[in-house]
């Protein structure tokens, strides 16, 4: 009898821990929602999208430029890091000699583990002065995109490597037996087969890109505006929260929680997108 109760106690305990893990997300949404309620009561969506400026002290909450800034920087960074990452993974899998590969994959692993604040710092002391030589002040949309590329690319390489490894070897063997050329196999067999895994990984990384905060804050100049060109400073949603949380009060603070909510909605949309692409894997 006692054994049976032991089992039951354990099962209940484990169920509790599991519920705690699952509840974290619910708590996050609840806190974001209730903390952004005050501003939602006072202001209309119009004020956020068609406002004039971001001056929380004067009750001006024009969030749109920061949403646009976040999207710009993310898109630019993905435009560079996705082709670069996939090309590098193709090299690792199909072209690279063994001696190069073993040390190179370690390097990519190390790069993917370096904290983003370090990339931000390095961007600030090396990349920004470099860009400033072309066009002052250097802290700009482009600097943010470059630093974000540093952060994202190593992980894209890892993701693409895994996607290529998961391609059914039978297809590749058959293609070789049919006498297809290397480029042909890569283009017509491997890339299409790895497509779903690639897209899932890339979309998840764009979620990471849009959520990146301090590294982007450090190099972007943080002027609230819709940037006219690559060399203009820009402020992202995330940087705005990090910059203003320290002194924000009342509605202002509520506006920052609302920005957090907007970020979560974007991330949720991206996750839904990945579920659309993820292949239904059945684990044996």
């Amino acid at each position, binding site marked *: 009898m006692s054994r*049976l109760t032991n*089992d039951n106690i354990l099962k209940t305990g484990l169920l509790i821990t*599991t519920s705690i893990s699952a509840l974290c997300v619910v708590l996050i949404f609840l806190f974001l929602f209730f903390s952004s309620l005050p501003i939602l009561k006072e202001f209309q969506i119009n004020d956020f999208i068609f406002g004039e400026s971001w001056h929380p002290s004067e009750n001006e909450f024009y969030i749109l430029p920061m949403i646009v800034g976040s999207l710009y920087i993310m898109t630019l960074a993905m435009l560079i890091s996705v082709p670069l990452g996939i*090309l*590098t993974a193709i090299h690792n899998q199909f*072209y690279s000699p063994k001696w190069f590969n073993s040390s190179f994959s370690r390097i990519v692993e190390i790069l993917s583990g370096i904290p983003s604040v370090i990339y931000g710092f390095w961007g600030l002391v090396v990349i920004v002065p470099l860009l400033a030589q072309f066009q002052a002040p250097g802290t700009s949309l482009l600097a943010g995109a470059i630093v974000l590329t540093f952060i994202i690319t190593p992980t894209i390489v890892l993701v693409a490597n895994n996607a290529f490894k998961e391609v059914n070897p039978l297809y590749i063997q058959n293609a070789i037996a049919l006498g297809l050329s290397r480029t042909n196999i890569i283009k017509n067999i491997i890339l299409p087969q790895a497509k779903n895994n690639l897209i899932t990984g890339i979309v998840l990384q764009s979620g*990471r890109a849009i959520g990146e905060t301090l590294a982007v804050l450090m190099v972007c100049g943080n002027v609230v505006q819709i940037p006219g060109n690559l060399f203009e400073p820009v402020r992202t949603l995330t940087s705005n929260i990090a910059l203003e949380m320290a002194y924000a009060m009342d509605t202002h603070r509520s506006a920052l929680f609302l920005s957090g909510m907007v970020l979560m909605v974007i991330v949720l949309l991206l996750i839904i997108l990945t579920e659309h692409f993820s292949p239904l894997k059945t684990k044996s």
Partner: protein
Amino acid sequence: MIPLPTNNNVSDKLLKVASWLGSLLILFFFIALITDVIVHGISRIDIDFFLNSPENAGRLGGIAPMLLSTMLLLVLCLIFALPIGIGSAIYLAEYTNSHHWFVKLIRKSLNVLASVPSIVMGLFGYAFFVITLDFGFSILSGALTLSVMVLPLLIRNIEDSLRNISKEFRHNAFALGLSKTTTIFKVLLPMATQGIILATILSIARAMAETAALLYTSGYVTRMPESVFDSGRSLSVHIFDLSMNVPGGEPSAYASTLTLILLLLSINIITQYLSHIFLNRASSL
């Protein structure tokens, strides 16, 4: 990967050159980053740098309080996250089948949790731990926020290592009349120890790299923390503060960066070494 046949038509050569360029670009970036950090960081680093408190907003002095804060944050974070993480992983791997709606729901919520941007995690930590639970800006609040953050990573890795244990062990234990509790504690958990250790190390690396979630939870006081209810500045927050808010803080920022990279590098090497050992042991079984 199966080696593909080599043939030297034009498109193959093009792809070869382009993909080499991609790899070399990343290699070049790595070398540039590491040499730059070493060259600028090494001169400030000596034994005093690790033992002294910062002076003049960090321009002079050392990083001892940050090292202590970082360590306290990591230890506390694991104290909170490990029991919940291991418990959830056991429940998901041993008590449920993956098609049940409850399990699907939990998995979805863990997926979302894994993608929460760190600044949003910081907002949550601030609203919940700092304000609602009234822990204030403290190492405790920071560690709790970090533990929520590493939870999905922990659960996924530990669950995987439990699932990788062959079904036979469970059947044999059952045939021997062992209770489920005994099976879990005497058979499955010991077998999954390696996976749990690796998952823990991964979480430490993840937590050590975190900055944004800590700004408004554990704060950025440079004093030596006297208890976990004190505010404490982690090494990563120190780098951020030095480079953004302290004119002339660059040399110290470089030195702190080098320290953090070395710490993470040693974690990486330990992980490699351990997985190597575990792999050898598994193949010799």
